[in-house]
C-alpha cells in the first residue's frame, strides 16, 4: 500500500501542529511504507493561491492511479487563530479532495483536523456523500470521525491513525512574558517581580480544555475563583470551562470571590448552596497563579468554615519558587495553610524573578513612574516601559557591535540581542507587531509579511518568535543578498509575490545608518514593484526620521570603535 501526504497550513501559522516529518512518520505507520510523495501548502487567509493548488491537484492525480493508495491530509491546526482561515481551508479542501475523489483511484483519503467540520461545510458534505463510498474520512484531534464508515479498509486505516496521538501543544510557547517592574500587595508589604505572564489566545483553549477535564473529574458542586492580579483572560477561561461542564447537564455553581469581604463571600457561597438544595460535597478553588500561597490562603480564609473540609485547588500558573518549595503529591503541590494542606494542581510552570525594593530596577521604575500595579494584561505590549528594556540589556549584556554592516565602524556599546532567550524574543516580537498594528489602521496580523535580515544577532530569535508565536508570516533574507552579491532564491521570490497583497514590513534588530533597511526595501521593490508599507527596528540609533516605528531609540555618545 502506497501513500502520499499533504500538509496544509495558513502561512502565518505554518509551524502549528505536526511537522512534515511527523506527518511522514504517521503515514509510514499507517501504511507500513514511506510516503511516495510529501507535499505542503501554505495558504494565504485572504486569498487562495489557486495556481499552487491546481499544481498540487495535478500531482496528486498523477500519483494516485493505484487502488492501494492512501492520501493523508494534515489540516490539524486551530482555525480560530487566523482570520477567515476556516472558510479558506474548506474551500481548498473541497477543491483538492473533491477532485481527488472524482478523478483518482485512492483507496482512502484521510483528513486530519482539529475539530470535525459542521454539516454545512463542503468537506462534511463530501465525507457524508454516499456516492464517495466512504473513501473520505475526517479524523478530529480527539478521535472523532466523520465519513468512511461503509468501508472496512478505511476503518482499519483510521484505527492505525488514531493509535498515534497528535503532537502535544507546548503551553509555554503560547504564553507571553512581559518584562517590567510589577507590584503586588503581599501581607504587610509590597512585592515586586520582574515578569508578568499572560496566555496568548491560542493557549486559552488548551487551558480551558484542561480546566474542563479537572472540573469534570472532581466531584465539586461549587467552583470559586479569585481574579486578583489576573487579566480578563482568567475570568473568561474559568467562566467558559464552567459553562462547558454545565452544558453537559451537570449542576455546578460558580462564585467569583474577587474583592469580596469574608461576609460577602459567605453570602455568595450560601446562595450557591441554597440553589443546590443540599450541602456542597466539595469546592474547587481556581486561582491564576501560585507563588507563595498568599492568594490561596486569602481565599480559603473567606470561605465559610463548615465548607472548607473538602477543598481542591487549581492554579493556571505555578512559579519555580512554588515548585521548588512545596511538597509534590503526584502532579499536585501540597500547600500548607492554617495547619492544613491543600492540594493544588497547576497547568504551567514559569520562572518568577522577585525584586527587592532596593533593586535598582524598582528604584528606577519608581522614578520613571513605570511600576505596574493591577492588571498589566490590559495594556498592549507597545510602547514598552523603559525599565523593561534596560533590564533586558542588563541581562544580555553590552558589547561591541557584531556583525557590522560594511561602510561604518562598529558601535562600541551595543546590546547583545543575539543572546536573548525565547521569552524575550517573543516579547520584542509582540512589541513590534503591536507597533505596526497601532500605526497602520490598514494592517492586520493575519495579512502581514515581515521581511528581516538573516543574521547571527537578535534578528534570528526575533524572526523565529514572529513566525512561531506571533501568527505572522516572515521572510528572512541573508546578508549576501542584501548586499547584492547574490539573487533572491526562487522560493523566497514566490513567497514575496504570494504575499504582495499583504501588508509588508521591513524590520531589523537595530538601525544606525539605515543601510540594511534600505537594502530590504530594495529587495522587496525588485520583486513586487513597490516599497514595503512600513519600516521599523527594535532599536533606532540613527539620526531619526527614517523609521515608521522603533521599540526604543537613543543617540550614542561614544561611537568610535577601531
Amino acid at each position: 500500500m502506497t501513500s502520499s501526504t499533504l500538509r496544509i497550513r495558513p502561512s502565518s501559522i505554518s509551524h502549528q501542529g505536526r511537522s512534515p516529518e511527523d506527518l511522514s512518520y504517521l503515514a509510514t505507520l499507517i501504511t507500513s511504507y514511506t510516503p511516495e510523495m510529501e507535499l505542503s501548502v501554505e495558504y494565504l487567509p485572504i486569498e487562495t493561491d489557486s495556481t499552487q493548488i491546481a499544481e498540487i491537484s495535478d500531482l496528486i492525480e498523477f500519483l494516485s492511479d493505484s487502488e492501494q493508495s492512501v492520501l493523508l491530509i494534515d489540516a490539524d491546526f486551530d482555525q480560530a487563530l487566523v482570520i477567515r482561515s476556516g472558510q479558506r481551508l474548506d474551500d481548498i479542501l473541497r477543491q483538492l479532495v473533491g477532485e481527488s475523489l472524482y478523478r483518482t483511484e485512492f483507496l482512502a483519503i484521510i483528513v486530519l483536523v482539529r475539530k470535525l467540520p459542521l454539516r454545512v461545510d463542503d468537506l462534511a458534505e463530501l465525507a457524508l456523500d454516499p456516492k464517495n463510498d466512504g473513501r473520505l474520512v475526517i479524523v478530529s484531534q480527539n478521535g472523532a470521525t466523520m465519513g468512511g464508515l461503509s468501508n472496512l479498509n478505511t476503518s482499519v486505516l483510521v484505527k492505525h491513525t488514531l493509535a498515534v496521538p497528535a503532537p502535544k501543544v507546548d503551553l509555554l510557547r503560547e504564553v507571553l512574558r512581559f518584562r517590567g517592574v510589577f507590584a503586588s500587595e503581599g501581607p504587610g508589604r509590597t512585592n515586586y517581580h520582574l515578569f508578568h505572564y499572560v496566555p496568548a489566545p491560542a493557549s486559552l483553549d488548551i487551558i480551558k480544555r484542561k480546566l474542563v477535564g479537572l472540573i469534570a473529574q472532581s466531584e465539586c458542586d461549587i467552583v470559586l475563583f479569585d481574579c486578583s492580579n489576573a487579566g480578563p483572560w482568567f475570568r473568561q477561561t474559568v467562566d467558559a470551562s464552567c459553562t462547558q461542564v454545565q452544558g453537559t447537564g451537570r449542576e455546578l455553581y460558580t462564585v467569583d470571590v474577587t474583592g469580596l469581604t469574608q461576609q460577602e463571600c459567605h453570602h455568595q457561597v450560601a446562595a450557591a448552596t441554597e440553589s443546590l438544595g443540599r450541602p456542597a460535597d466539595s469546592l474547587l478553588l481556581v486561582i491564576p497563579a501560585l507563588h507563595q500561597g498568599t492568594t490561596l490562603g486569602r481565599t480559603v480564609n473567606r470561605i465559610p468554615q463548615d465548607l472548607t473540609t473538602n477543598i481542591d485547588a487549581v492554579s493556571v500558573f505555578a512559579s519555580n519558587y512554588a515548585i521548588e518549595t512545596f511538597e509534590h503529591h503526584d502532579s499536585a503541590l501540597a500547600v500548607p495553610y492554617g495547619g492544613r494542606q491543600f492540594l493544588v494542581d497547576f497547568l504551567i510552570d514559569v520562572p518568577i524573578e522577585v525584586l527587592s525594593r532596593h533593586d535598582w530596577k524598582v528604584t528606577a521604575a519608581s522614578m520613571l513612574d513605570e511600576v505596574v500595579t493591577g492588571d498589566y494584561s490590559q495594556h498592549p505590549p507597545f510602547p514598552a516601559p523603559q525599565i523593561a528594556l534596560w533590564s533586558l540589556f542588563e541581562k544580555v549584556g553590552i558589547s561591541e557591535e557584531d556583525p557590522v554592516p560594511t561602510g561604518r565602524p562598529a558601535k562600541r556599546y551595543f546590546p547583545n540581542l543575539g543572546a536573548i532567550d525565547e521569552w524575550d524574543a517573543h516579547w520584542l516580537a509582540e512589541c513590534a507587531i503591536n507597533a505596526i498594528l497601532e500605526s497602520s489602521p490598514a494592517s492586520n496580523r493575519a495579512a502581514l509579511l515581515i521581511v528581516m535580515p538573516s543574521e547571527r544577532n537578535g534578528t534570528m530569535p526575533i524572526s523565529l518568535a514572529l513566525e512561531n508565536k506571533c501568527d505572522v508570516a516572515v521572510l528572512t533574507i541573508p546578508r549576501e543578498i542584501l548586499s547584492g552579491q547574490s539573487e533572491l532564491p526562487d522560493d523566497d521570490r514566490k513567497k514575496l509575490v504570494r504575499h504582495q497583497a499583504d501588508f509588508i514590513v521591513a524590520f531589523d534588530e537595530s538601525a544606525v545608518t539605515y543601510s540594511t533597511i534600505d537594502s530590504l526595501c530594495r529587495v522587496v521593490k525588485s520583486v513586487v514593484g513597490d516599497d514595503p508599507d512600513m519600516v521599523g527596528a527594535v532599536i533606532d540609533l540613527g539620526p531619526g526620521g527614517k523609521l515608521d516605528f522603533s521599540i526604543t531609540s537613543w543617540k550614542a555618545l561614544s561611537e568610535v570603535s577601531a
Partner: protein
Amino acid sequence: MENSDPSRVQSVAAHVRCSAAPEGWPRSERQSGRSSTVRSASAHMSPNNRSIEGDRNTNPSRVPASETCPIQRQAASTATKADRSKPCGGSVTEPVHLIVLERRVRIDDLLPYYSRADGLAIDNLWQKYIAADESATLPVLIDLSHVRFIAHDCLLFLTALVRERESASLETFFELPSADNAWNFIRSWKFPECVQSITGRSFEYNLAPKTRERYLADRNVLPQYTSPIDLPGGGTTEDFLRKQFQLMPLRLDLGNPLRAATFASAPWMDLHMRTVLDVFLRDQSLSTEGDTTNAGDRVGSTVVMEAVLNAAMHPAAKTGYITSQIVPDNPFSKTASSLEIGIWDDGTSIADTLRERLSSGGSIFSDSYGLVDEIFEVELIRTRGRAVSQRFERTLHSSQEEIDAHFPWLTVAAFFAGVSAIPERSTSGATRNSITAKISDDIDGRAGMGLRYIRRHVLDLWDGEIRYWSGHYRMSMTKGNAENSYRVVIQYRPESSWPLQGNLLMLSIPLRIAQGGKR
C-alpha cells in the same frame, strides 16, 4: 441581553399616533400642526388610550422646555445647518412632528399590553405619518416614551434614519422611554454615543426637554447592564457585560475590510462567548461522543466576519454599525429565544452594485456560480397601505445563465454561491498599486461566497432567518422544504415610504440547548 420581562414581551406592532406639537412647544408649531395628519392618526387610536394632548394638559411636568432647550431652538429654525447659530427663543415657523409608540390596554382580554419598538414598527410609522407629504423635510421628534421593549434593530434603523436626515441637514429628536428597562437598554446599547458620533453634537441636543433632564441627571450613573471596572492607570470605565451586543461603530473606509471584520468579530471570539454559543448552537445531527464541534466559533469567525466584510465591500461604504440582542422566547407568539445580529452600512445597495456591474457589460458570475444547485422561491409583494396590491412569484435557480437585473431579483441572486460585483478577483490579478485596491479587490480568492457562508450557517445549519432591507425593499429569507432551497418574501414598500439608505442585514438565529444540557 433582553430589556423586558420575557413573558411580557409582545410582538404586535405598537399603537401609533402622530400629532401636532403639544402645548408648551412653540406656539406656531401648534397652530401650524398638520390637521390632516392629526385626524388620520386619531382615527387609529384605541378608545382606551389617553390622548397625548390630554396627557400633557394634565401633566404639568411635561411643560416645556426652557428657552435654552436645543430642540426648541432647532424647531424654530428652518432646519438648515446655517440657521443653527440663531439665538434661542427665535420665532418659530415650522411644526415638530411626533411619532409616538404608546402603551395601550388590550381590548379583548384587558391584559396589559406593552409596546414594542422594532425596525418594522419604525418603518411602518414613518411610512404612515411622515413620508407621505413634505413633513419629512421638517424636524421630527420620535417619541419612544411609552415603549416598554426595544428590539436592537430599531436602534439600527434609527441610526440609519438619523444619518440620512443629518446628511440632508434635517433634525431628528427623541423622547426616550420612561420605563427603566427600555431606558437602560438605550443607554447600555450606546445609542446616545451612536447619535452623537453621527451628528457631531452632544446627544442631549437631540432630546426633548423632559427626556433631556433625565438623561443629564442620569449621565453619571451607569445603566443597568454595565458595571464599573478600574483602569490600571487609575480611574474607572464602564464595562458592558458583553461588548458584542452594543452598537459598535465600524470604520469601513480604511482600505482594509479585514480590519473592520476582525474588530467586529473579536468580541464573538471571546472564549466564554464561544463556549456559551457552542452549548446553544451545537449541531446535534453530528453529535459524536466525546467530540466538540466549533458551532460557537462560527458566529464570530464566519457569520459576523462575512457580514462585516460584505458591508465593507459595498461601494461608498464609510461607516457601519453592528449590534445584537438575545430575544427571550415568547410564549404568546410561540417563538423560541434567538440571537439577533444586525449590521447596517451606508454603502451602495447590493442590488445596485450588481446592476452597475451588469450595465457596464461585466459579468457577476465567478467560477463558483452553478457548482451547487441552489433554488430560491421568491414572492414579491407590493403593498398599498395594509393591502397587498400586487403579488409576483418567481423561482431563481443557480443553473440560470442570466438574472433579471431588477432590484429584488438581483438582491436575491447575491445569495447564490459565486455571484459578485467583482467575480474575477484572484491572486494572479493582485498588484500593489494601492493599499485599497490590493486588499479590497482581492479579499476573496473565490468571489461571491460571503453571503453563501452566512446563508449556509444561519438558514441551513441553525434554521434561522435572514432579513435584508434596502431602499423600499424588505426581504426575508428562510429555509425551504428541500435541501439547498430557500423561501424568500420581498415586500416592496410604496415609493412614499422612507427609502432606507445603505444596507441593513439582520440575522436571527434560534437558540437551543444541546442534548443532555440544561438551562
